[in-house]
C-alpha cells in the first residue's frame, strides 16, 4: 500500500488519475474499517490518498442562495458557521461524538455510503449536489443519484468529491435521530420531514428517512401527491401517506435493533410529523 499526501487539488487529481485509492479525510470511518490491532498499521487493501494537506478545500460560503462546502470541511466548522442553516446544524450536532465532529468531514460521511449515515439524510431532502473532479473533468451530481447502493457510490476511481452544494431553503421541519443512547450513537432510525405552506396550502412537502433502506429513502413522486393540498386535506390523508412510506422502506435487523422496531418508529415519526404541520 502506498500513501499519497498531495498538497493541492491538482496534485490529488493527478494521483487519482494514476492510482486507485481510498480517499481519507478525517479517517473516522476508514481508520476503524481497516484497523487490525493495537500498535499495528491499518491494513488498507488499496493505496491511500490523504486529503488533510490539500490547500483550499476547507471553506463554507454562500453563492446564489446555495451553500458551498469544501470537501475538507469538518463538522465542527459547519456547526459553528453562521452560513449553515439550523436544520443542518441540528443534524450534525448529533453525529457521533464531539471529538469525531472535530475530525470528520461530511464528504467522508457521504462517501462511506452507510445506510446508517446521518449526514446524507438532510442532503437528500434538500436536493444537495456534489461536485466531482477528475484530472480532465468536472461534473455535478445529486447526492441521491451519487449514492447507488449499500456502501456504494457513483465515484469513478479517478474522481474525488471537491464540494457539496446545498440549496438554502426556509422549510419548517422535524428532525429526529433515534439511536441506542443520547450521544455517540449509531442511528437506528432517522427522520427528517420538511414542508412549506402558502395560503393554508401545502406548497412543498418532503420526507427523508435514514437507516430503513440501503440509503436514505426519499420519493419525489410520493411527495408530489400531497403538494397543493390544504393542511386539513393532508392530515386527512395520513393513512395513505403512512401506507406510501410503509411500502418504500425496507429496514433490516442488525446488532443494534430489529426491523420491526425500525419500521414502527419510522412510521410513528412520520405520523407525528404530519400531526405537527400547521
Amino acid at each position, binding site marked *: 500500500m502506498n500513501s499519497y499526501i498531495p498538497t493541492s487539488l491538482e496534485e490529488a487529481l493527478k494521483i487519482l488519475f494514476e492510482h486507485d485509492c481510498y480517499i481519507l479525510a478525517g479517517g473516522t470511518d476508514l481508520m476503524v474499517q481497516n484497523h487490525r*490491532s*493495537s500498535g499495528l498499521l491499518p491494513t488498507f487493501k488499496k493505496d491511500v490518498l490523504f486529503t488533510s494537506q490539500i490547500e483550499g478545500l476547507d471553506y463554507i460560503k454562500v453563492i446564489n442562495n446555495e451553500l458551498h462546502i469544501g470537501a475538507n470541511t469538518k463538522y465542527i466548522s459547519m456547526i459553528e458557521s453562521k452560513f449553515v442553516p439550523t436544520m443542518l446544524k441540528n443534524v450534525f450536532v448529533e453525529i457521533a461524538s464531539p471529538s469525531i465532529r472535530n475530525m470528520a468531514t461530511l464528504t467522508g460521511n457521504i462517501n462511506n455510503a452507510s445506510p446508517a449515515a446521518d449526514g446524507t439524510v438532510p442532503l437528500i431532502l434538500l436536493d444537495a449536489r456534489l461536485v466531482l473532479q477528475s484530472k480532465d473533468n468536472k461534473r455535478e451530481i445529486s447526492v441521491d443519484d451519487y449514492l447507488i447502493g449499500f456502501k456504494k457510490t457513483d465515484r469513478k476511481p479517478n474522481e474525488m468529491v471537491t464540494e457539496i452544494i446545498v440549496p438554502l431553503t426556509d422549510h419548517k421541519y422535524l428532525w429526529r435521530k433515534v439511536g*441506542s*443512547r443520547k*450521544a455517540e450513537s449509531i442511528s437506528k432510525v432517522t427522520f427528517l420531514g420538511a414542508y412549506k405552506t402558502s395560503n393554508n396550502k401545502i406548497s412543498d412537502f418532503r420526507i427523508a428517512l435514514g437507516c430503513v433502506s440501503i440509503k436514505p429513502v426519499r420519493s419525489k413522486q410520493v411527495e408530489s401527491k400531497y403538494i397543493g393540498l390544504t393542511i386539513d386535506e393532508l392530515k386527512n390523508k395520513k393513512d395513505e401517506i403512512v401506507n406510501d412510506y410503509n411500502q418504500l422502506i425496507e429496514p433490516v435487523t442488525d446488532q443494534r*435493533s430489529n426491523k*420491526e422496531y425500525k419500521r*414502527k418508529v419510522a412510521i410513528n415519526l412520520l405520523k*407525528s410529523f404530519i400531526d405537527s404541520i400547521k
Partner: protein
Amino acid sequence: MLPEYKTSVKKVDNEEKMSGKALFTDDIQMDGVLSAVTVRSKISKGKILNIKLPTLPEGYYFISAKDIVKENVCNIIFSDWPVFADKEINYKGESIGLIVGEDKKICLDLVDQVVIEYEEKEPVFDMKNSAIHKDFEKGDKSVLNDPNLESYTEKFQTGYQEQVYLETQGMLVYLDGDKITVKASMQCPFYIHKAICRTLGYPEDKVRVIQPAVGGAFGGKEHYPSLMGAQLATALVKIKKPIKMVFDRKEDISFTTKRHPSETTISALIDKKGKIRALDIHVSLDAGAYIGCSGVVLSRALIAATNTYKFDYVHISGDAYITNKIPSAAFRGFGSPQSIFAIEMFLAHVAKKFRYPGVLYKNQYLVETGDTTSTNGKFRDKIILKELIVKAKEMSDYDRKEKEYSKPNSYRGIGMSYFLHGCGFTGSGESDLIKAKLIIRKDKNDIVTFYTSQVDFGQGNRTTLKRIVVDTLGIPEDHVIYDAPDTDKTLSTGPTAASRTIIIVGGLAAKAAQHLKDIWVSGKEQEIIEPYVGPDYIHWDEATMQGDAYPGYAWGVNVVEVSFDPITYEVHVEETWSVYDVGHAIDERILVGQADGGILQGLGYGYLEVEEMANGEFRQKTMSDYIVPTSMDAPKMHTAFIDNPFKYGAFGAKGAGELTFVGGAPAVCIAIEQAIKEKIYKIPANPEYLMEILEK
C-alpha cells in the same frame, strides 16, 4: 450547589492518575518483550482432531496443551476450565494455544494460518443440563394445603452484561532470576498466583504477582486473569523471555466472562386479601461452558431471592446450567441482581393485581431486626430500612409523583426498589477458606508499613485502608506506607471481591493497627501478623443452604424517575435518589463515587445494555455496539447515607461496592412500568422490547 465532602481525605492515587503518570499494564516498558496472541476455537462443541501449524519462523512459538508443565486446569473455585483446550472444545472462542513472538503482526498472521480440524458435535445453547442444583425452604409448609389460596406465577429474564472496564484485560510475565513474575490488570493477585503455581506445579515462592495501576474491573478481572496467567506462565517456562498479552476491546468483549443470564420463576399462594402466604422461587443461571464460580453465584442469587422481605413459607431452588457458550463469571452483585430484580418486579405486579399504589404493598413484608434470613440465619444487627425508605421518599417527593404519574398517558414514572447485600464471603468462608492475615510493621524511625492483597481498581480502597490505619494509630499520614499488592511482600488478605474489602480487611487492618498501638515502643522495630477472626456466631452449611449466609448486610433504597417517548419507545432516566445503610461512612466522597457509578451501571443493566448471543457468539463485540451510558444518558443523582455502625467493620463500616449496583434495574423498570402502564418481565427493557409490550 456542588457537594462538600466533610469526612473525605485526598485520594492517594489522584495525582498519578490525573497526570497520566500511573502505569497500567500496557504502559509498562520492557526490553525484548514478546507478544502473545490466542488461537481460539471456531466451533462451539467438538473434538480437535488435528492442529496444522504454519511453519513458524525462528523465535516464534506455539504454546498449547502439550506444553502444560503439570496440570491443565485453571484454578477457579470449581476448577473445570482447562488452561488450553486439549481434545474437547466446549465453547466458540476457547483458547487452544498461543502464538508467541517478537512481532505482534507476524503472530496475528500466524494465528490466521493455523488450521484446526474438528469433529463437530451438536452444541447445547439452552439451559437444560443442570450442573449444580440447590434447594432449601423456610417456614411452615402446612400453608401449602390451604384450599382458599390462589396461585399466581410469573417468569423473569435477565440478559448478559459486559463489565466494560475501561482498561482491557492485559498481562505481562517475565523471569526475575528463576521466579515467574507477573504484572497484570487484576482484582485478585493471589488467585493468579495460585493458578500459576497449580498449572506449573511450582512452590509458592517461585511465583510473584505485582499489581500495577488497574483501570476498572467490576468482577471481570476476578477470574479471567487466572486463565491468562496460567497460559502465559506456561509459555514463559518454555520461552524464558518476557511476554505481554493485552486484549483489544473486541477480543475482550468477545471472549471474556460476563454476568450470568438468568430465568427466575416465582409462584405465590395468595389469600383473599392479597397477602402472600407462601412463595416458591426458582432461579436458573446460564453458567456457560465451565462451572468456575457459578456455584457460588447461584448460592448468592438464591440467598438474596427473598431480598428484604419475609414470608410465612418460602421454597427456594435453583440450577446452574452448563451450555456451550463463553463461561459466565463474576460481575458486581454476583447473582443477587438477577434474583432481586425478579422479586422486586413480582411484588410490584402483585401489588397492581390487588390495586395497591406504589410501595405500600411490599412494605408489609419488610424484615426487621431479629428476623430470620431466607436461610434460617438471623438478622442480628439493627435494620434501619424503614428510615432509609422515609428518607428516600422525602428526597424524591415520591408520594406526590407516584400519584401524579399513575394517571393515564403520563409517560412519566417513578420506581422505588429496596435491596440488601451480604458483605464478605458466604457463610463462614472468611474464617474457613480465606483466612486472611495482615502484616503491619514499624521500623526504627517509627514509620509504619502494612500490606494487603486488596487491589484498588477505582473503588478508593488504597485511600480508605490507609486512612483506617493512620487514624487508628493516630500518627501523621506520611508515617504510614501502604503500596499496591505484591505477593512477595504481603500475606493474602483475600480477593478484592464480595464487597469484603472494607468490612473484612478494613476491620482486620484496624485491629492490627490497634494491636501495634498497644505494644508501641518508639524507636523499635515491631511487627504484628493479624489473623482474621470472624464473629463466632456465624454458622453456615453450604450443602443444605442453612444458617448465617453473611457476616453482615448492607441495605439500600433507590428511587428512579423516568420519562418515556411513546413515539420512539425511548426511556430517559431523569433523576435518581438513593439512600444507603453501609454502616458508618468512612469517606463520603469515595462512597458517593461507588453509589453514582453503581446505580448507573445498574440502570444500564435494566434499560440499556444489550448483549445477545447467537450460535455461541456475542452479537455486540465493540463499544459502538455494546452500549453503555454516556454523560448525556446519565441522570442527575442524589445520594444519602444513614449512619448505622456495624460492630465488626472498621470504624463501623460495612460493604458498599456491590450494594449500589443491585437496585438500579428494578427501580428503573418499575418506573418504566408506571410510564407505559404495562408490565415488564425482561431486562434490558430496551425500546425494542417496550415496543413489543405496547404493540402486542
